[in-house]
């Protein structure tokens, strides 16, 4: 089944894909056609989104990586769509209308890494306190000693 | 005994207070037994003083008034509620001699005071000026009004059967026949009592998980204690009326009357505690449907039945 998807993705989009693990297919996608690709994958039966996993590779000079992990609940297969971003341009089109459950995941990725999902209606602080907006704590460059909450002065 | 001594000591305030501490203790112990726990244990012998300690804890607490609340009404409402419920108890004969007042319209008086409680509790929610209190207040009015109709109807059935409203006369007239004839009325009365006094499974106005503590949310310390106490006394009064009307009050062999009265009362309470441990809370719309579509028609039918029986007997 994953072989079929691999061939079809190659034919339709021209994206390379490789087996990631047993049951998991890794697709190297591009930012501009990620929406089309995810729509295509949903039609293929990968209709249960797991998460958006962002990896910060900036210390290694590679920018950011956005992984969409989708599951086919009935065929029991996974697909992982990987989009690489450069450090200067952290924007990805949002897929909240294709996969509604991914909307909060996009929100989390935005507040933790600062990746902007264009079209997401609700990019606001969710897990972090209000004062921590824009600190992007899961980035490798985040120094937790610097960003302490300004403590109340003692009486 | 002097009248004022009666009101103050027995069967007045002091007696009432001890009875309530014991009822509260009993509730905790029974619930703990059902939960397979030990319950209160360390304060006093078998934890008997635990509830007393809790009362003193509440007395020590700070007197908090919500900023937006009406200060006068907020502090006044608990006392109004308390005075009203204590008046109910004054009419109840615990034995042949131990009562504060006895009139020819005892039953009417108690039921009228019970009916008067609903606006008091609603105001308690209203003057708190808090969302949850307000919803709790609305719920309590809804619930009490729909519970009062069956309560009145079933109590009136007993009054029709005995032909009097005086409690002591009712007790003297009661017999095994009256118990059997009034059994349906008794069941309706107990259910209505649970509804009126917000006992589980009808604790909708105070539903902790839905509206925090309903109209009690903003009250703390002494105020809270008084309000909760008045709720408890209300149930106590209604149950006492139930015991008098349907279970023969202080009548009973060998033991003194007051002991029989409290044995019967304790059985009723035991029933409510076990119900509390097994029956989940129902929803407001379900309660209203139950009250108006099931309980009230049943109570009316029961009234007709009792009148027919009365016709045949006389």
């Amino acid at each position, binding site marked *: 089944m994953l072989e079929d998807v691999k061939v079809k993705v190659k034919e339709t989009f021209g994206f390379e894909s490789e087996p990631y693990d047993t049951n998991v297919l890794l697709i190297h996608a591009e930012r501009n056609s990620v929406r089309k690709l995810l729509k295509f994958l949903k039609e293929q039966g990968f209709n249960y989104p797991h*998460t958006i*996993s962002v*990896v910060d590779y900036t210390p290694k000079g590679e920018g950011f990586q956005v992984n969409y992990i989708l599951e086919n*609940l009935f065929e029991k297969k996974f697909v992982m769509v990987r989009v690489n971003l450069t450090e200067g341009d952290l924007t990805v089109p949002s897929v909240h209308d294709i996969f509604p459950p991914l909307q*909060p995941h996009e929100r989390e990725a935005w507040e933790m890494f600062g990746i902007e999902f264009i079209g997401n209606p609700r990019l606001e602080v969710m897990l972090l306190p209000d004062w921590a907006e824009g600190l992007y704590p899961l980035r490798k460059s985040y120094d937790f000693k610097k960003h302490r909450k300004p403590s109340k002065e003692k009486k | 005994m002097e009248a004022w001594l009666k009101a103050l000591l027995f069967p007045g305030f002091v007696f009432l207070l001890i009875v309530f501490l014991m009822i509260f203790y009993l509730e905790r112990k029974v619930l703990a037994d059902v939960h397979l726990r030990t319950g209160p244990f360390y304060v006093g012998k078998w934890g008997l003083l635990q509830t007393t300690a809790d009362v003193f804890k509440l007395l020590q607490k700070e007197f908090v008034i919500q900023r937006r609340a009406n200060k006068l009404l907020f502090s006044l409402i608990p006392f109004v509620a308390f005075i009203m419920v204590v008046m109910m108890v004054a009419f109840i004969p615990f034995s042949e001699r131990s009562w504060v007042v006895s009139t020819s319209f005892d039953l009417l008086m108690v039921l009228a005071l019970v009916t008067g409680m609903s606006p008091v509790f609603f105001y308690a929610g209203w003057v708190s000026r808090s*969302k*949850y209190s307000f919803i709790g207040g609305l719920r309590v009015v809804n619930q009490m009004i729909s519970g009062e109709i069956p309560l009145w109807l079933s109590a009136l059935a007993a009054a029709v059967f005995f032909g009097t409203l005086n409690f002591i006369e009712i007790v003297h007239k009661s017999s095994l026949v009256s118990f059997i004839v009034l059994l349906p009325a008794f069941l309706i009365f107990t259910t209505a009592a649970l509804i009126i006094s917000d006992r589980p499974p009808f604790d909708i106005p105070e539903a*902790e*998980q839905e509206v925090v503590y309903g109209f009690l949310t903003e009250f703390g310390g002494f105020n809270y204690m008084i309000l909760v106490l008045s709720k408890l006394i209300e149930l106590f009064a209604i149950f006492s009326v139930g015991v008098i009307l349907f279970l023969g009050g202080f009548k009973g062999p060998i033991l003194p009357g007051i002991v029989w009265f409290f044995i019967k009362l304790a059985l009723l309470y035991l029933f409510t505690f076990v119900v509390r441990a097994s029956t989940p809370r129902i929803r407001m719309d379900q309660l209203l449907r139950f009250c108006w579509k099931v309980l009230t028609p049943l109570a009316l039918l029961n009234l007709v039945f009792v009148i027919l029986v009365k016709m045949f007997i006389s």
Partner: protein
Amino acid sequence: MGNSIAASGYTFVLEERKEVSGEDLGLLQEKLLQLNWGVQHPASGPMRLKVWVDGDEVVKVDPDIGYVLRLLEKLVEYRTWINAIVNVERACFMDDFGTMAGYSIAAEKIAGVEVPKKADYVRTILCEAGRIVSHLLGLGGIVGVLGVHTPTQWALIAREKFLDAFEVYSGQRIATSSIVPGGVRFEPTGKFIEKMVTAVDFLEKEFIPRYGEVFIDNPTLKIRTVGIGKVSKEKAVEIGLAGPALRASGVPSDVRKDYPYAAYGELDFKVVTREEGDAYARYLVLWEEIQESAKIIRQAIEGLPEGDYRTKFPVKVPPGEAYVNVEWARGCFGFHLISDGGTGPYRLKMRAPSFANVWALPEIMKNVKLADVPVIFASLYMCHGDIDR
């Protein structure tokens, strides 16, 4: 209700219905009352649900989470491969074995370490015991929000027996940190097996009959839960429900069966599903899964092989990554673990099932009564530590 209150000068925060629900209601426009269901609320736990009510009807809810955020994903980056387990297990205190097992399997996959068979079996026993421990609290929680605390207390008695077994095994009752990359940390002694069998015996012979005859098929419980928070099969997949909630809607999704890990491939068990998809179905799924887990534990104890329980795990793990799922008590927990060749994880992304469920709430809580909010909330069986991580 709305307009009359506003007219009487009552100063609640009332909001235009149109603004809240986003739909044009024309002349029917009313003002709504916003309730803060949480953070300090008897049934909410450390999270807030903004509930807009019209009288007794809920118009819209909006979860506000993040009150127990610990940034576990960041903390893991400061740990070594072995001692990262103390962060992973703290995703939720109720079932800590599942998360540790998932992390360990991911780390072993990257390092290419083969785990001894005995460790696999011990992991299975522990994970299932953790599931039982967690589900017992879940059962109590669902009935508990309806004002009856008896189920919670009875469930805690059965839970204590399992915690005793954990203590014999690892020395702690909760937060056992007992599953590490490379196996398990402690030898499953005879005493541990004995305690575990005692616990399962108690569960099957005392707890299940006692609980089942009162709180299963309870008429009052049924009128409160049947048909409440109904989610169809398609809807459940679309809004991304996870775990018992997904299975209660009729989707047979169970990682233990679909992608067997540990010793699950060799054991015989069935995936509990129900078709109704309402709060009562979710309650029954928990109830049946407890019995199923007890059977798995018995099988695993019977088939416990001899041999080593731990192999050496390298200090430095070669670069690589893995995405591993485990069936946690609350659903499918995913670990996207990345190594850069260092002494600790480079990045760990945890896919939390409760996070998926909490964002399904706005869809499920449409046109319900205010009194149903806690029921639906508890029946989705979420853990706040898991939502926030």
